[in-house]
């Protein structure tokens, strides 16, 4: 279809304005403002906000990265073998079950995980009733830092399995048959054929998950313990909400942009390639 005449082009641009304005007003302007605010304190350009971030929150930066990395490892450590198994052996029940977390909102996941993993929550009481695990172990899970990665993985596993199943199903059956014919079992078919051939999609899924986990807010908010290291977004919320310190909050925000920046760039590139 050839491009429209100039008059039509103008009209189409006009028609696109409302949607574009929403993004500019609701996203673009705020983004720029937060960038500027991060370098501003008491009306002057300064690095004071970043200094404060370094002083107060640098451990939390490490903590955030650690939690997100752990969540990523959990998600893919379970997701890849699971998807590979489902590609080769099929189970509609398993696939359906794995879709469920997609439809559970982040906040609900946070709340559900809180009462599930809490020191007196449903999981510990179940394990206690079954006599499986000692109270110390369950306490360790509840009080320790692994609860958050578990919650993040629970939610993200659904999307990752969806993406991986799509990619794995895109691998022609003949490549797997050839491997099978030459002696490869399920394990080897997954790691020697499926994963390398689906590598671009796995990379994209990893980037999507990592960005989301680094920037997670709702889930940590529901599961926060109040003391100890926090996720960066919680720090931001407190800085802004409790202290009214928009400048430092913005600085935290910029740090989180940087953490997600490389990932976001790859995300857009990957989508554009399609």
């Amino acid at each position, binding site marked *: 279809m050839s491009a429209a005449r100039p008059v039509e082009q103008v009209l189409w641009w006009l028609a696109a304005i409302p949607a574009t304005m929403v993004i500019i007003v609701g996203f673009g302007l705020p983004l720029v403002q937060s960038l500027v605010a991060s370098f501003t304190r008491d009306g002057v350009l300064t690095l004071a906000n970043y200094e404060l971030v370094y002083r107060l929150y640098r451990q939390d930066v490490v903590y955030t990265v650690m939690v997100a990395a752990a969540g990523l490892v959990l998600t893919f450590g379970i997701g890849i073998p699971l998807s590979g198994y489902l590609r080769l052996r099929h189970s509609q029940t398993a696939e359906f079950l794995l879709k469920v977390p997609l439809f559970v909102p982040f906040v609900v996941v946070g709340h559900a995980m809180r009462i599930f993993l809490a020191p007196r929550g449903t999981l510990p009481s179940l394990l206690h009733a079954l006599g499986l695990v000692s109270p110390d172990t369950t306490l360790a899970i509840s009080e320790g830092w692994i609860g958050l990665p578990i919650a993040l993985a629970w939610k993200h596993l659904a999307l990752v399995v969806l993406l991986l199943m799509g990619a794995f199903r895109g691998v022609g059956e003949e490549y797997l048959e050839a*491997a099978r014919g030459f002696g490869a079992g399920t394990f080897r078919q997954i790691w020697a054929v499926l994963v*390398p051939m689906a590598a671009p999609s796995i990379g994209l899924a990893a980037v999507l998950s990592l960005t989301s986990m680094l920037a997670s807010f709702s889930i940590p908010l529901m599961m926060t313990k109040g003391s100890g290291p926090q996720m960066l977004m919680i720090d931001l919320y407190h800085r802004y909400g409790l202290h009214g310190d928009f400048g430092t909050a913005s600085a935290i925000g910029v740090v989180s942009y940087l953490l997600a920046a490389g990932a976001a760039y790859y995300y857009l590139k990957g989508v554009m390639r399609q």
Partner: protein
Amino acid sequence: MHVRVEDLTKRYGQVTALDGVSQTFPSGALTAVVGPSGCGKTTLLRCLAGFVAPDRGRLWMGDRDVTHTQPQSRDAAMVFQSYALWPHMTVFENLAFALRLRKVSRGDVGRRVREALDLVELDRVPGIEDRRPRQLSGGQQQRVALARAIVVRPQVLLLDEPLSNLDAKIRHRVRVEIRALQRRTGITAIYVTHDQEEAMSIADMVVVMEGGRVAQAGRPEEVYARPKSPFVAEFLGSTNVLAAVMDPDGRILPSAAGSLIFRAEDIQLASPREPAPAGSAWVDGEIVDVLFLGAGYRAYVRVGEEVIMADNRTPMPRGAVRAVIRLEKVFAFGRD
């Protein structure tokens, strides 16, 4: 090692892909399984490979009943129609894959890979081992697929239309090389193709399939010269089929009661004024078109309501003509 199937049956819903097929594939021979699309030849091959489990029947490789054995444990290697070379691995890694699974030592892996590449005559291509499949031509990919199958030194080689993705010229050359390879290694090879000319030119034995059943099996010359059914007669060679019968003088008369089948190369075109020689069938007609085939000419002769093909070295003029065929070259079948 010979291969045998007995009463092999496979159904997909309403469709019967294999209908009680029983056949022996002789040891050390290249057996071609040929037939039109949907005849069951690919299903048969995949049953032999172990990728499809038959609903009924048994399979033997040598003296071993492998009906329920995993593909990995049968001693049969397959060459896929699409080659199925793993794109993320180099040629070397593609070939080494199966060897490493069998825990062959490092040094031996290198040696055997080179051996296999030598057998398919790819060893002359510099740096072939480090190339990826997408960097190879179609013909080279085909040879790598072949090499990958023979590197494990299987007892049985299964080939699924290995040449169908290649250009016609290359096909002719490669099929001869495949035959030479089979002869040199003495491996039992089962070769599926839809191209009857390809099948007959390289096979020691031909198995013609139709509708999930074996229509006829035997040496190529045998099956070609003495087809047992209209289908086999028509499928092999450039054939004419006439709804007709012959009278005692050899004259061909149109009739719904029978089929007369004869090949284009067996027809002599003579003048209608000359009587046909003894021991021949004949029919009068008119040449309506002549095509140049390179090696000769093909005349299209209208006979009654139908048109038959007659091949000849030299071109034939338009006009009335008498088609004469030696009796032993005419296959007569009754119509059911």
